[in-house]
């Protein structure tokens, strides 16, 4: 079943923060976050494994709440380059993984 992402869209001023959520009704093994700009390939941001770890690099971080089967992506001090559509992809097992993607969150960062 497709994970639900919220919000569907968000507009930020440069320097503002945003949180994007991804919720699943099924038990997950991992959550994968991607950013896709128009006409380009989805770019891998980070992977969260079950166990509730939090990860981050630069000003983008993410968490995975195993009890709630929910992951959140945190964008702090947003930059113009953060604009794009963010997708979470969920996997229910290790090994060969098919990712089930959410419908995406469109983020626009303006000057």
């Amino acid at each position, binding site marked *: 079943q*497709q994970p639900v992402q919220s919000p569907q869209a968000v507009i930020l001023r440069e320097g503002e923060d945003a949180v994007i959520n991804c919720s699943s009704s099924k038990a997950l*093994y*991992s959550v*994968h976050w*991607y950013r896709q700009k128009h006409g*380009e*390939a*989805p*770019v*891998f941001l980070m*992977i969260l*494994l079950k166990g509730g770890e939090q990860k981050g690099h630069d000003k983008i971080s993410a968490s995975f709440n195993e009890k709630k089967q929910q992951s959140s992506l945190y964008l702090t001090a947003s930059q113009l380059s953060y604009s794009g559509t963010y*997708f979470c*992809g969920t*996997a229910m097992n*290790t*090994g*060969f*993984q*098919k*990712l*089930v*993607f*959410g*419908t*995406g969150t469109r983020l626009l960062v303006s000057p």
Partner: protein
Amino acid sequence: DAGVTQSPTHLIKTRGQQVTLRCSPKSGHDTVSWYQQALGQGPQFIFQYYEEEERQRGNFPDRFSGHQFPNYSSELNVNALLLGDSALYLCASSLGLGEGRENIQYFGAGTRLSVL
């Protein structure tokens, strides 16, 4: 180090025709997955190949078939094209049997298929 490459970038076909899309995985990767992305939607899993065999399949009809070659490259074939097959077709490569952290899928830029 070349990433995932797909060809062609754009393709226009008519209903009923057949199409073949190609993908070369990232260097060192042995698993290829194919996804269909309709406009404004997230990618939908079609199937996954490892060691030249289809390992997993999504909810797509048999008109969608694939192949993986000994050099790990892959093809996606779609027969009897329908208008609804118009979409961006994405290929992703990964390491098939690694631990969870290694199962990161890297995407190519995709092939935009238009069916008229």
